[in-house]
């Protein structure tokens, strides 16, 4: 009996989240028609409890549960990331003026369900659990994207998401099945270290005979991660889904879901190619996978930035900007070194502050003006100065200019890229940053340089406070990034 109970302790955060998800659903039934905000507060409290448990785990020795779940600092970092972004998203839902608060319990249920998927996804070296976590996240996201199913754009967004999501799931599963067929195991660590003489055969034996089937399987599996991170050529869904989904859901997809994709990719590559007892032939193969990722990174950031320039809707612009940022993050991944992975994780942390802030602004602006077109921003800076100044800070950070956290994150990524000898890639990324300056500053110009329009903006003190905090943190960690860098280093995989 103890053998079963003991590992359950390692799963405490997941179990608590499950309880919270069911609790939110039941609470909404009990509170029906009275105070829907209460369910939101309940979600916030349960997230806080999960966060405390996770904080206490930082620095612990890695443990395993049920042979599949790995509880280590790397996983805990991304779990904390998820919980922190979900807390902000919950506050967004609470302050969303377009939300009718009808069936609100299901909203929180799906958000928490998606978080459980992420939790399993980031804490396993086993392809079965990775796939199940990814599917749980995807399924909850489909329903969330179509949550306002009466609205044309929301229904369309969900449909597109489900069609492209199904395709990428099918492709990834076929890749996993090929990988299993080639190596005889689903455990990534096992796959990398087995010499190929005994069972399971492992990657090494296959690579010495022929690398072509491995390459095929690898490309198919990477497609699944590319879809979650919205990397070219699996980015088609991003602009439409980001635009059509309710803004808090867009925020969740842009921040937490993308981070989950990055985490799973880092763990997949880390366990397969950078582990302690990886066969040398496998590690060499990892370098060529890095080359492929470098090409994807260059294409992704260029396409994202160039498409963002033409957008007239703020949400679509941020969607293309998030595609471009996936490209920047891939620089760190493509180096295939521990330091490069660290830079990618740091950039994820930077991305948290600036993107939550930027989407928060979109939500506020949409709620007050009922539109997300960039034209409607004219003179908004004079009507809502505090929020607009915060937005300019986020834009500066997204561009990658000092003194913000975005600058330091980009600096780390570029430095690691140069250290790995990928000069061309860093050159492309630097050019891309200049291009991104144009469209980010078009927003800032609209905010402040045009004549103010008439009419006033209703106040939302809690929400404005949240944006102000995010803004201050963006600058604070930009000036003093050591705290986060230290934290990321402690949580590194290798």
């Amino acid at each position, binding site marked *: 009996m103890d053998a079963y109970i003991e590992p359950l302790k390692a799963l405490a955060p997941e179990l608590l989240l499950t309880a919270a998800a069911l609790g939110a659903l039941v609470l909404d039934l009990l509170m029906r028609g009275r105070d829907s905000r209460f369910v939101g507060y309940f979600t916030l409290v349960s997230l806080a409890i999960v966060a405390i448990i996770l904080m206490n785990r930082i620095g612990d020795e890695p443990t395993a549960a049920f042979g599949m779940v790995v509880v280590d600092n790397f996983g805990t970092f991304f779990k904390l990331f998820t919980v922190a972004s979900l807390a902000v998203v919950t506050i967004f839902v609470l302050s969303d003026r377009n939300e009718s608060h009808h069936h609100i319990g299901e909203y929180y249920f799906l958000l928490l369900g998606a978080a459980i998927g992420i939790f399993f996804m980031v804490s396993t070296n086993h392809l079965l659990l990775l796939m199940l976590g990814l599917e749980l996240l995807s399924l909850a996201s489909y329903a969330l994207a179509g949550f306002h199913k009466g609205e044309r754009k929301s229904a369309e967004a*969900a449909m597109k998401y489900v069609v492209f999501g199904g395709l990428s799931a099918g492709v990834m599963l076929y890749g996993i*099945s090929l990988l299993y067929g080639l190596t005889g195991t689903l455990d990534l660590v096992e796959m990398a270290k087995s010499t190929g003489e005994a069972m399971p055969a492992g990657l090494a034996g296959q690579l010495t005979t022929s690398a072509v089937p491995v390459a095929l399987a690898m490309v198919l599996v990477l497609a699944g991660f590319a879809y979650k991170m919205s990397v070219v050529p699996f980015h088609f869904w991003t602009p439409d889904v980001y635009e059509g989904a309710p803004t808090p859901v867009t925020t969740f997809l842009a921040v937490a879901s993308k981070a989950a994709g990055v985490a799973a990719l880092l763990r997949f590559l880390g366990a397969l190619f950078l582990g302690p007892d990886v066969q040398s032939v496998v590690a060499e193969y990892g370098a060529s996978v890095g080359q492929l990722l470098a090409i994807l990174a260059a294409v992704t950031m260029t396409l994202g930035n160039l498409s963002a320039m033409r957008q007239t809707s703020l949400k679509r612009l941020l969607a293309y900007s998030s595609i471009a940022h996936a490209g920047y993050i891939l620089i760190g991944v493509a180096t295939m070194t521990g330091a490069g992975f660290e830079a990618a994780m740091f950039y994820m942390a930077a991305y948290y502050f600036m993107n939550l802030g930027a989407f928060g602004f979109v939500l506020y602006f949409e709620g007050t003006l009922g539109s997300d077109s960039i034209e409607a921003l004219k003179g908004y800076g004079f009507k809502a100065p505090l929020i607009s100044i915060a937005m300019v800070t986020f834009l500066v950070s997204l561009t990658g200019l000092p003194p913000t956290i975005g600058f330091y994150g980009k600096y780390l990524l570029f430095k690691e890229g140069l250290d790995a000898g990928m000069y061309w890639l860093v050159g492309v990324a630097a050019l891309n940053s200049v291009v991104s300056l144009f469209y980010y500053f078009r927003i800032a110009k609209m905010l402040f340089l045009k004549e103010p329009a008439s009419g006033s903006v209703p106040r939302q003190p809690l929400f404005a406070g949240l944006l102000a905090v995010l803004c201050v943190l963006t600058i604070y960690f930009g000036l003093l990034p050591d705290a986060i860098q230290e934290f990321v280093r402690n949580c590194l995989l290798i």
Partner: protein
Amino acid sequence: MNIPPQQLLILAGILFAIGVGGFVIRRNLIVVLMSIELMLNAANLTFIAASRMHSTSEVQNLDGAVFAIFVICVAAVEAAVGLALVIAFFRRHQSISLDSLGAGE
């Protein structure tokens, strides 16, 4: 009857290709979802064939067979969510064609 695993793998490859082809060519949302099911089943067949390939008379390697059961479950859930969204979509558009989905840039 004993089918060699190689033939199963080839069949799975063909199924997967048909799935991808159907996804790209057909415009009907339900057929697109069916194509996705086909891809998932290609993965299932590969899993089962590989599981048999890697098993010896003494040691059974059942990882693949177990994975296939999970995939069947995931496929059912995806079909449920997908079809529910198709219905929501149909209510607004009176159509289940991908063409009415409004092409983004």
